[in-house]
């Protein structure tokens, strides 16, 4: 196998974070890849080369105090937003109730608003001036006139 193919195998092992059967089989015949895989396993177990630098206690304390300020500001923002949304909701509900109550005051015949679909439809029909009511004068509305089928024979 060429060097390029060996690199591909190593890259795949790193990306998958495991050694598959094909890589294992290759490593048995390629001492370079076997050595590289052993090295990678060792690196993984010994930890990252950047982990030797640890933050000092002062650094962490400084970060944490900054985070407190940041988080407090965020929390305040969230609380403020919640308060604004709450106030807006309350105002909307209050307005809806007020408008409903003033509507029912203008219709003295109606004592209560019903929730059933039929009653609601009836109520809508009752308030609709375009719909003829039972017993109303039908001649007041335009009537369609079709020629009689016997007209042609005549």
């Amino acid at each position: 196998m060429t060097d390029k193919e060996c690199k591909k195998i190593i890259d795949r092992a790193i990306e998958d974070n495991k050694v598959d059967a094909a890589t294992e089989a290759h490593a048995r015949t390629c001492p370079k890849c076997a050595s590289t895989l052993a090295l990678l396993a060792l690196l993984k177990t010994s930890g990252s080369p950047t982990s030797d630098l640890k933050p000092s206690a002062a650094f962490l304390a400084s970060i944490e105090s900054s985070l407190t300020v940041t988080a407090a500001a965020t929390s305040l923002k969230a609380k403020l937003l919640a308060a604004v949304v709450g106030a807006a909701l309350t105002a909307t509900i209050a307005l809806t109730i007020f408008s409903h109550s003033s509507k029912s005051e203008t219709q003295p015949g109606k004592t209560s608003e019903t929730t059933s679909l039929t009653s609601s439809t009836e109520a809508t029909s009752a308030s609709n001036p375009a719909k003829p009511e039972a017993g109303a004068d039908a001649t007041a509305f335009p009537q369609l006139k079709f020629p009689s089928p016997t007209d042609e024979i005549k």
Partner: protein
Amino acid sequence: MSGTGFGRPPLTRNYESFESNDLIEMARKGQKQAFSMLVKRHYGTVMYYLMGFGIKKSDAEDITQEAFINAFRKIDQFKTSGSFVGWLLRIARNQHIDKLRKEKKFDTSGNEFDLLNLPDDRTPEAQVVSDAVVDDLYAGLKPQERVLIELRVFQQMPFSEIAEHLGSSEGNARLVFHRLIVRLRKKFRS
């Protein structure tokens, strides 16, 4: 720290056992301790990354601090499908560039890294000491090389993304990584 913080977790919680994604979720809910664990985990990578630009350790620490605070502020913007370390490094680099701009030292023409000609700011004494410790594979690695191993081996980052962070081409990042592996392998064998 005060005992009445928001989203304060139980004191007995051991953050070391948590995966980074879990810590990120907790940090999003305002848990400072979870974020502090992320700071502890990735401090070295950000520091070495900045030192790779030739920044002094004390300056790198200031930028790292700002970068972490910024990361906490913007943690809601982080997409968990991406790499947290990559995101952190991007913030750190922007922080570094902002600092240079403020100091009017930012040179847009030559801000790219040449991975093949990494600056080695170790003293000759330090180099001798590092080389003497043959059993320590990491000794003698330059900051940028450490970051390269961290990103590739530990974060499984694709070369295209590594190249983006290191300001290099994908091919160059791949070449340097494999050369580094050969070097470490030789050291490992010996």
